[in-house]
């Protein structure tokens, strides 16, 4: 009886694990998972999809599935595990190493138009052995938004920024005391890194990191510049002096009732630097319509459509990375801002930390950093603890 059961189970599994590799002929439908529910975003995507369908009658439907941003990668992986993988998927930069190295994505360099004009720093994360596995459709540098009603002297260094925000709030909206990777926007100023270039050694216990984190801790608990855990302050409603955020958030300032400006990230002791967040879009190899999907991806990311998408998602195409082009689709930002924050940022910026086994690493670091967010925390000790916890994870092959 048990052998029969095992046989049935194996059969079921074999079906699901390797199912769906034969290509479909006839009418095709494509499904892309995205993490935005923003109407304007979806409208643009649908327009592009409609154009594509008109030129390719065998593709009858292209669906955009809005999966909640919170837990997006988890949901995507669950879909894949259950045999319900989409044809295309948006990918967070932090999950890039896992997806790219797993072989789950189909190679797409051949499908991308004018692939050589893509900025190298933007594609680094999405490449392996010279092949491109996902297209970086959004490369969004971090900048410092400043509420000019509350702050008169614009800061150029972190010390100045914190001093000017004491009691007036310098917020990091994406951090929420959980997404520690956002802190890289600060610690890069000290030259610190979460881990070494090859990802094998831990950077948290290094002196640069300890200095940077001590600065952050002081800014929260002593200078009272950064809001403490559990306190939410909304910069975009005018309640904070400054905010560290990606430029895509500028859209929230459309109806702002206060004066504001956008600056590059302040300098740290080691000089100026830039940090970028990315999002990629890739084709899942095991999709039944992988070819059609790759084709659509090529269309979605061609220079014309990239320009259209640029109003929400800063592109990685060299030809589009000049202040005038960007200004057309980013009416809220001035050309100088676009140049100094976006273009320079994309060109010289470092992507937020990412690593294989990202989810588990993330969770472990987050848990290990929790003791830091108390007034009397011992910064050095906590950071040593982080390295101790993640050492086995970093050393995994």
């Amino acid at each position, binding site marked *: 009886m048990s052998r029969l*059961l*095992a046989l049935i*189970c*194996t059969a*079921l*599994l074999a079906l699901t*694990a*390797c199912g769906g590799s034969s290509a479909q002929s006839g009418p095709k439908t494509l499904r892309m998972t995205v993490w935005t529910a923003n109407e304007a975003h979806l409208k643009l995507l649908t327009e592009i999809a409609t154009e594509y369908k008109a030129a390719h009658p065998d593709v009858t439907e292209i669906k955009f599935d809005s999966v909640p941003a919170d*837990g997006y990668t*988890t949901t995507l*992986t*669950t879909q*894949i*595990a259950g045999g319900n993988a989409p044809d295309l998927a948006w990918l967070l930069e932090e999950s890039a190493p*896992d*997806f790219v190295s*797993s*072989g*789950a994505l189909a190679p797409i360099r051949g499908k991308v138009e004018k692939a050589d004009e893509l900025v190298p720093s933007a594609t680094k994360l999405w490449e392996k052995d010279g092949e491109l596995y996902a297209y970086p459709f959004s490369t969004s540098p971090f900048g410092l938004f400043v509420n000019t009603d509350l702050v008169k002297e614009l800061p150029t260094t972190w010390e100045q920024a914190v001093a000017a925000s004491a009691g007036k709030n310098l917020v990091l909206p994406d951090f929420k*005391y*959980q997404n520690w990777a956002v802190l890289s926007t600060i610690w890069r100023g000290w030259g610190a890194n979460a881990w070494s270039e090859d990802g094998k050694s831990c950077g948290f216990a290094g002196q640069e990191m300890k200095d940077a984190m001590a600065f952050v801790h002081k800014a929260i608990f002593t200078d009272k510049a950064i809001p*403490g*855990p*559990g*306190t939410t302050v909304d910069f975009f409603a005018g309640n904070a002096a400054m905010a560290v955020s990606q430029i895509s958030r500028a859209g929230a300032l459309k109806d702002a009732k206060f004066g504001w400006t956008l600056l590059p990230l302040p300098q740290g002791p080691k000089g100026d630097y830039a940090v970028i967040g990315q999002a990629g879009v890739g084709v899942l190899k*095991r999709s039944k319509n992988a070819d059609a999907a790759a084709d659509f991806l090529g269309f979605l990311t061609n220079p014309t459509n990239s320009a259209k998408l640029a109003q929400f998602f800063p592109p990685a195409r060299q030809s589009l990375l000049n202040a005038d082009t960007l200004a057309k689709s980013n009416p809220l930002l001035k050309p100088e801002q676009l140049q100094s924050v976006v273009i320079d940022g994309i060109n010289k910026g470092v992507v937020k930390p990412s690593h294989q*086994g990202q*989810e*588990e690493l993330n*969770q472990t670091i*987050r*848990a*290990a950093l*929790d*003791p830091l*967010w108390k007034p009397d925390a011992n910064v050095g000790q906590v950071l040593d603890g982080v390295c101790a916890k993640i050492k086995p994870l970093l050393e995994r092959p």
Partner: protein
Amino acid sequence: MTFWTYRRRDNLVGYLFVAPALLGSIAFVLVPLALVGWYSLNEWNVLGGTFEFIGAENYERLLADEKLRDSLVATAWFAGGLVVLNLSLALLLAVLLNQKLRGTTLFRTLFFSPVLVSLVAWTLVWQLMLQPEGSVNGLLGFFGVDGPNWLRGESTAMVSVIVVQVVKNVGLNMVLFLAALQGVPAPLYEAAKLDGAGAWTRFLRITIPLISPTILLTSIITIVGSLQVFAQIAVLTQGGPGTSTTVLIYYLYQQAFQFHHFGYGATISVLLFAIVAVLTLVQWRMRRKWVLHES
């Protein structure tokens, strides 16, 4: 007609009546459980689409896993705290409502109302209330007490999750206890009073033994339930701060769904199932000893 004796027809009806539940149980409970057991013997790389047999390797990993130990400790604290608080509060409320007072119906409704509020809604509301500037600290402030950051302290987070869950569900146990209390014949108390027994003695010697079947039932349900509490932790603390509220089922979720170690997650599932089965079996066996009479 001779084959289908009354006995045989009766048996047939019996089988037919239980068939839906039985087939459902096999299809939706036992087969998946077996599959989960099978997964636990494999290394399943979801993204890469590989599935390799590795035998007992996952179980070896289980034994050596430090994080699992932390999780088991957290689970013990959580389940223990929850069961103790839930059962004693339910009994206390039932006893209070069993007094001859006017308006107990109103109070009964009020205590029961959280049971009906949607779980996610309830948890979201408490999440907002437990913020450093939320209502809980606001109310404490009225009494001059400076409330802590509930969800960010390791022990306060655990206490918070327990309290949120208990307040949500204690109404159910309260109603069960109330019914049981009302089934205790009044003459017993009268006789005891005449014999000079005090209120506490009456409670211990009469009430508790006579409602022991209900206590057993509710304790089994509550213990099993406490090991399955997931949504509240997912919404309130995400297993933190640190790993202080990462109970076993949340750890399972992390391993399987967040870190994509489906094989290892399956192994933890098997462990969880074993724990629940053992606890229930132990309680069921102990009923001879603890429960007054068995029907």
